[in-house]
């Protein structure tokens, strides 16, 4: 009796493992055959479901002589960022909490604002509707930031892969207006990643 139970149990386990492997092979095959189309469909779905127009932009007071005279509240939208090369057109919020990043692009509060002539740091998720296509960016591509007080155009001059604790690779300075935008790398990671992909750009107009 005991032998029979043992044999049955063994057979059951083997059958379960075989069934599991068959399902995995099927899933893998479908992914290989139709992966690109699945990604495109999801991207399209995300594009239409992400509400980019709902948030009102914060009005900022700007003076030609003194620069910014007011600042947005922490967590408020104050600009739009457009990267034509990767079809990105996203809201920019002041602050960099995870809650903010769920809505769009964050602005590191320890950096300057567009028009202030210093370092500006933005960051966004590497999800399909944000910065998944960062790898397509090249030197010479343009980034446009539109605020209520002006439009700022930046030209990419460098792209770097850094570790998460290399914050010194995004230096804060006030001599030149540099926009640095980063996202996590690898771009399709599952789970935590310790690398960041940074795009460096200079104000040209």
């Amino acid at each position: 009796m005991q032998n029979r139970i043992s044999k049955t149990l063994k057979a059951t386990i083997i059958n379960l493992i075989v069934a599991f492997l068959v399902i995995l092979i099927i899933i893998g095959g479908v992914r290989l055959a139709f992966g690109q189309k699945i990604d495109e469909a999801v991207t399209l779905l995300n594009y239409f479901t992400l509400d980019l127009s709902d948030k009102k932009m914060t009005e900022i007071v700007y003076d030609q002589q003194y620069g910014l005279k007011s600042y947005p509240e922490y967590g408020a939208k104050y600009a739009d960022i457009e990267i034509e090369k990767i079809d990105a057109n996203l809201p920019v919020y002041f602050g960099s909490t995870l809650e903010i990043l769920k809505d769009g692009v964050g602005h590191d509060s320890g950096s300057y604002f567009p028009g202030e002539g210093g370092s500006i740091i933005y960051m966004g998720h590497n999800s399909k509707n944000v910065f998944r296509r960062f790898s397509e960016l090249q030197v010479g591509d343009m980034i446009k930031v539109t605020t209520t007080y002006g439009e700022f155009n930046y030209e990419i001059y460098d792209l770097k892969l850094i570790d998460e604790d290399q914050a010194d690779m995004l230096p804060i300075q006030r001599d030149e207006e540099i926009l640095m935008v980063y996202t996590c790398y690898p771009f399709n990671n599952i789970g935590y990643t310790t690398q960041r992909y940074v795009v460096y750009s200079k104000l040209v107009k």
Partner: protein
Amino acid sequence: MKKILVSALFVVVILAMSTMVKAASAEDAINYVKTQGGSYITESDLVRIERHFKQYPITEEQGDQLKAKVDAAKAVIDNSGKTVIKDLSKEDKDKLRSIANEAAAILDLNLVFKGDTCEIYKDGKLIETAFLKNNQILVYTGNDEETTNKNVLAISLVAIVALATGALYVGKRARSAK
């Protein structure tokens, strides 16, 4: 606790700078903070400080009160006999934290310490978030939590379906064998 001290020092130096704004140009004040803060004050902190004083000017009385808090904080550190902040006793670290909170109250600010960050509130609104590590970690911008959870859920569902299919198959075989 080191994180609390850095935050405390950050707030106290912010407030100390406020006493210099009236007597000196903004440039001089920032240089003062740089000198006083040493390696604990980063360039990012200075940007935040600069922005804060542009938006929230203070009275002379508040400046005097804050200067007293700076002196109190310095006294705690000097009397400890320690040269490295992380070596301070728990009691001294608690004192610094308390001084930081008192200094914040003078400006109607509230400090909320959360893990590696310190949130600064004014009139119930979040006005700033300061990182408490000297070597700041860049914000995590990977697949957001929702996407990662969805991926994990998808994989789990596949596994459950596979096992259920397998179990059904095994059950059928067992019945046909009888």
